[in-house]
């Protein structure tokens, strides 16, 4: 476009991107490649040089009962948290959107867990769910029910963690859905009214749900990726216990890598984790994206 300035412009472009590019190479690209390389080695901290062992780490993962439990637990956790927090977020957004008053107030209430210190709130939940002195079981006792030991029984621990995960994430989804709802043209809802969509459900099916499509897809992907990354609550509350009933991918990776210092093995778990995240992103962009955009 500007003939004279193009050389200077290119120079400026390189200079301005150079710090970011350098940081990117050193702090993101190189370590990520190193992590991929580590996954094919038997590296343990302090043992140099590591040996290349090909797919041995992955073979071991496949046989490792602890890892399998961790993998299945993560799937179960994601399987609960993602759908519940997506539907819950949508429900809350619709409820608040139609409320006559108190929209800002309720939005703040449900969003508060998103900005709260997860570790501290996990501790608060631990107190709430304490088998003997926790208010939850105390309330159940009033109803004549003996509550379970929520976080220390292998039957309920994953469910309890999932409940905390939903509590933490639903407000985030709600805010995204509220933004999506305000983007729906008012005229379309009015057209649905005039066209004879008498009940709220008819209007939801005819206008709200189809027009929320892109938002929903985004929220679903985000919720899946966020819940695959569950770590804080496990690290604070259960440390994977009891008896590995709450082992999840990132926590297993953490203990293998930073407690047992088996970095190669830990890197292999990281790759499994990365593969899951990438698969979810691919699902969004390649498969579902086409079905929710009209235009």
């Amino acid at each position: 476009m500007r003939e004279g300035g193009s050389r200077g412009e290119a120079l400026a472009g390189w200079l301005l991107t150079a710090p970011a590019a350098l940081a990117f190479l050193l702090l993101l690209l190189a370590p990520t490649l190193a992590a991929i390389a580590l996954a094919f080695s038997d590296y343990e901290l302090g043992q140099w040089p590591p040996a290349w062992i090909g797919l041995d780490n992955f073979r071991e993962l496949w046989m490792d009962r602890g890892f399998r439990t961790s993998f299945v637990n993560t799937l179960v956790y994601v399987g609960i948290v993602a759908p519940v927090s997506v539907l819950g977020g949508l429900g809350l957004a619709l409820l608040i959107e139609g409320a006559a008053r108190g929209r800002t107030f309720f939005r703040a209430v449900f969003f508060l867990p998103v900005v709260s210190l997860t570790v501290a709130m996990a501790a608060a939940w631990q107190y709430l769910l304490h088998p003997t002195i926790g208010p939850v079981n105390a309330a159940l006792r009033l109803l004549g029910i003996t509550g379970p030991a929520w976080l220390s029984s292998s039957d309920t621990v994953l469910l309890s963690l999932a409940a905390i995960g939903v509590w933490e994430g639903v407000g985030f989804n709600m805010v995204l859905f509220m933004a999506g709802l305000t983007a729906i043209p008012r005229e379309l809802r009015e057209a649905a009214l005039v066209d004879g969509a008498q009940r709220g459900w008819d209007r939801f099916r005819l206008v709200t749900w189809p027009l929320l499509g892109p938002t929903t897809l985004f929220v679903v992907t985000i919720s899946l990726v966020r819940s695959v990354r569950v770590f804080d609550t496990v690290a604070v509350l259960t440390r994977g216990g009891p008896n590995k009933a709450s082992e999840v991918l990132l926590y297993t990776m953490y203990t293998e890598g930073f407690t047992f210092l088996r970095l190669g093995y830990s890197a292999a778990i990281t790759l499994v984790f990365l593969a899951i995240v990438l698969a979810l992103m691919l699902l969004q962009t390649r498969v579902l994206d086409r079905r929710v955009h009209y235009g």
Partner: protein
Amino acid sequence: MGPVNGLELHGIGKAFGQTQVLHEVDLAVRPGEFVALLGPSGCGKSTLMRIVAGIETADRGTVRIGGADVTRAHAATRNVAMVFQNYALYPHLTAAQNIAVPLAMRRLSAWQRAPLLGALLPGTRAVRRTMMEDVARVAEPLGLTPLLARKPAQLSGGQRQRVALARAVVRDPSVFLLDEPLSNLDAALRSTTRREIVEIHRRTGAATLYVTHDQAEALTMADRVAVMLAGRILQCGTPREVYEQPADLRVARFLGDPAINLLEAEAGEDGAVRLEGRATGLMTRQRGPLTLGIRPEALEAAPEGWPATVTAREYLGEAQLLHARIGAQPVILRVPPGLAEAPQMHLRFDPRDALLFGADGMRLPAAEALHA
């Protein structure tokens, strides 16, 4: 006129918070009649239309359709069709599916409309088939037949407009509402669509209420024009009535482009109306200062009359506008394009084309504005 079926509005009032947007509005549209609701933006005309559609509820007054009181009835039960300013087509549905929505909502039960399951229920297929026949029937005269499989994003503005029209008429509404339907079209499409809308109106025979801020649309299309300003209908009459016999100064000022000339005049003790000291030939029972209204096309250059100074000319092709002064009062007149240029000229007008307004702004009725 007796009890008209069709649309009847009586004493409609509506406030948003502290702002009263509609004051005691009365309006009737007979079946088969085309009424334009004309007013500047923000005058409350769209609110009135939305009250008729059932999108808003009135604070006061009644809405009757086909003789039945529907003031509190749900929009879905009113059999009112509406064309929205931005068409409001469902972006995820094809043109055919858009047009079929009002039929599906009425003819299919909630279960039959359900995804997957609905198709399995008895009767769904047959109903859907007749629905598609109806869609084809309304699409054909609008030239939409080859476009029925497209989604709104693949249609031009004019095509979307016609899909919106088809969706509105497909169910034979008893009231047909149009909210500024031409405002998003370019000038060429506007005049063809204007004719199409009038044609559709004639075919359906519904009571049609057409909201617009464009007086040319209102005057050319409507049987009657209701002029609305600041939440009140000031006058409702045939296009000629509202243009030639405006009820008051505000209506006179709002209609006409360029706007009517309003001149300060004086009625003497004898009732003769004088402009700049010269008799106009008009007589009135009022005394004292008055406003004299003369349309630009009613003023003409003449060998004698009011001396005027020309200050500017605008050439329009088929005519020209002269900006001039009579004394200190500015006037605009529309004259043939060939009129010779001269800085000084004399102006006259036929007293029968002049309008007189009292100090309160109301037009002095014909009986009082006697012609000498």
